[in-house]
């Protein structure tokens, strides 16, 4: 029975962590390629949730499919945001001033998106009713929530697709080259600015898809980003800043630690476990879990 309970906690933690992982790799990609700390990442996730909700309400699209359908529009949105805003404060110039400007820009973007959504869509929480949100796959005594299981599986597929894209395609290799050494990459004829746009668009599309998957079981409201943004940053730093596999594992570790913490600590201290592990990792391995090749993708 004790073993079954432990397995249930591990399974629950991994399922929760799967979506954290997908949320985090978008952030890691943006940081890895552009060195931009995107505070608005959670807000794009929230917009992804709303678009999935819109698909479900207007076209009866299942949110699992809806999550995938958020990818193209959010890629375009990310690309436009990069071109119109971020490109003005990245790529050249005094790095310190640029860092300031980027932080202010993404934080400002986050405030604008949250408040505009509150004004336009009202703060009323919305939810997509799916049958699988309240059903479970039973593996003996272990119950795996169906919505979370599907979300987990799709997060894995999307993360794998990103990995393959980065490592096996010419465009992916160009992106990594632009991340590793923008100057040398540009000598090789790689359009670094376009690569940054590609990275930002992909990062935003991934977090929007994660939002869509989250919407299968989590209510949607303009302030929903606040529940996840800190965990995203912890996952990215935990995994090694900018490392995609690192961010993925970081997300899984957070879900797992949140769940296993409950075996030893009361519920009120659920996130304490996460931050203890975070501090331990930073103390013992300051570059993060996958930090040997930190700041690369």
């Amino acid at each position, binding site marked *: 029975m004790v073993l079954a309970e432990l397995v249930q906690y591990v399974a629950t933690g991994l399922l929760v962590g799967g979506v954290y992982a997908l949320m985090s790799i978008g952030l890691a990609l943006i940081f890895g390629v552009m060195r931009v700390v995107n505070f608005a990442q959670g807000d794009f996730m929230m917009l992804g949730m709303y678009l999935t909700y819109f698909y479900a309400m207007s076209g009866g699209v299942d949110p699992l499919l809806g999550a995938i359908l958020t990818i193209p529009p959010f890629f375009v949105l990310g690309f436009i945001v990069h071109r119109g805003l971020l490109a003005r404060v990245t790529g050249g110039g005094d790095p310190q001033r640029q860092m300031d400007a980027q932080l202010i820009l993404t934080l400002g973007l986050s405030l604008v998106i949250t408040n505009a959504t509150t004004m336009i869509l009202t703060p009323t929480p919305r939810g997509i009713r799916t049958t699988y949100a309240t059903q479970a796959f039973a593996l003996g005594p272990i119950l795996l929530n169906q919505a979370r299981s599907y979300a987990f599986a799709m997060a894995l597929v999307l993360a794998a697709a990103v990995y393959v894209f980065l490592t096996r395609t010419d465009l992916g290799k160009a992106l990594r080259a632009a991340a590793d050494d923008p100057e040398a990459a540009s000598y090789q004829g790689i359009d670094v600015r376009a690569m940054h746009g590609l990275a930002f668009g992909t990062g935003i599309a991934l977090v929007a898809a994660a939002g869509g998957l989250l919407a299968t079981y989590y*209510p949607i409201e303009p302030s929903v980003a606040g529940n996840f943004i800190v965990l995203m940053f912890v996952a990215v730093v935990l995994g090694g800043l900018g490392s995609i596999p690192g961010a993925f594992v970081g997300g899984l570790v957070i879900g797992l630690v949140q769940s296993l913490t409950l075996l030893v600590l009361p519920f009120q201290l659920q996130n304490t476990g996460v931050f203890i592990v975070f501090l331990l990792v930073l103390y013992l391995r300051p570059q993060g879990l996958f930090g040997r090749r930190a700041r690369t993708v």
Partner: protein
Amino acid sequence: MSFPPRTLVVVVALLLTAVAVVVPPAPAPAADDVKIALVAPLSGRWARQGQLKKMGAEMAIEEINGQGGIKALGGAKIVLREADAGDSVEKAVSAAQRVLTREKISAGIGSWLSSFTLGVTEVAERLQVPWLTLSYADSITERGFKYTFQTSPVSSLQAEQALELVTDLAKKNNRPIKKAAIVGDNTAATVFFFKPLREKLLAAKGIELVVDEVWTPPLADATAIVQKLRATQPDIVFYGATNFPDSIQVLQKVKEFSVKSPIQGVGAWLVTPEYVKTLGKEMLDSIQTVVATHPMKGQEEFVKKFMQRTGEPFMTQDPLCTYAHVWLIKEAIEQAKSADPKAIRDALAKIDLTSGPAASSFYPNRIKFDERGRRIGATPLIVQWQNGEPYTVVPAAVATRPIAFHK
């Protein structure tokens, strides 16, 4: 990654600016308008409740102004000044500070979450502005404040009365309560509700507490909590998840794990329309909650008007209370014959209303405050979900539907 001091300064400045824009610039009112402040969460995770409160306040103000304003002040109109309490005590306090110092405010209302109200009433007390609140926490009126008036029955009293009611109902239903669970967040009203249950009330009734799980919102996942409910099968779950996503996660898991224990909520957050949309009415049926007030028998016409006005499918405690608070302030101003906050405070301390829109919105229909600022005789209501709508079911005298027993 390290942020140099300059970066931090810029970030902090930006955040402060963001807070500053939350209080909208005040349109110039006529000189004799009476200004009332509403400090409620209009952004962040409790924004929906703030929105509902605002609807109630606006409806009352429209009625009062439409009926000729405040007669004792020559027909002066009431003007609402809203300020966003956001999602933290610090933001709530700063919003109250801002709205109460930038112009003369006669009285204030807010701030829904007891934790916010505790902070906001300190500001009101210091600035000597009378403050009406629906928040439940006992400590709100335990600090010797002169300007705070609490119309709701306090949490500990609600706990006592709710336990009494549910044990009675359980006996009538031939399912006596032997095991109870406490599940909820650690916001102030919930904490004060759970504390007496945990410390004495349950034991006094010979009820064993089998699950006691409290979290800090937001909740990451409800599996562990609901797993415990499934393992122990309590006869009643006292439930206080004020944050909507947390509550949805718990209730979805309750269904997923086929937990059959009856759920007794603590507060009006459990009876908002979005629950039906997110969970479906079948799942909500017979979940009940104890609230400070809810539309009662005799208020049908008024509720219909509210629904037409706002497009909401039904009315709940939050708009109803705020509606009553605005009317109560109006009555106090009529009696004080002045818009001066101190005079209104004195009038509120002496007021004894048994009729009118304010009194008929609370049970029993009387508004008189004791020396601590608590409404004398305040009794909670039990509201139950039935076929996708929440109805007042206890006490029977004001019930809009008979109670349905848990199957």
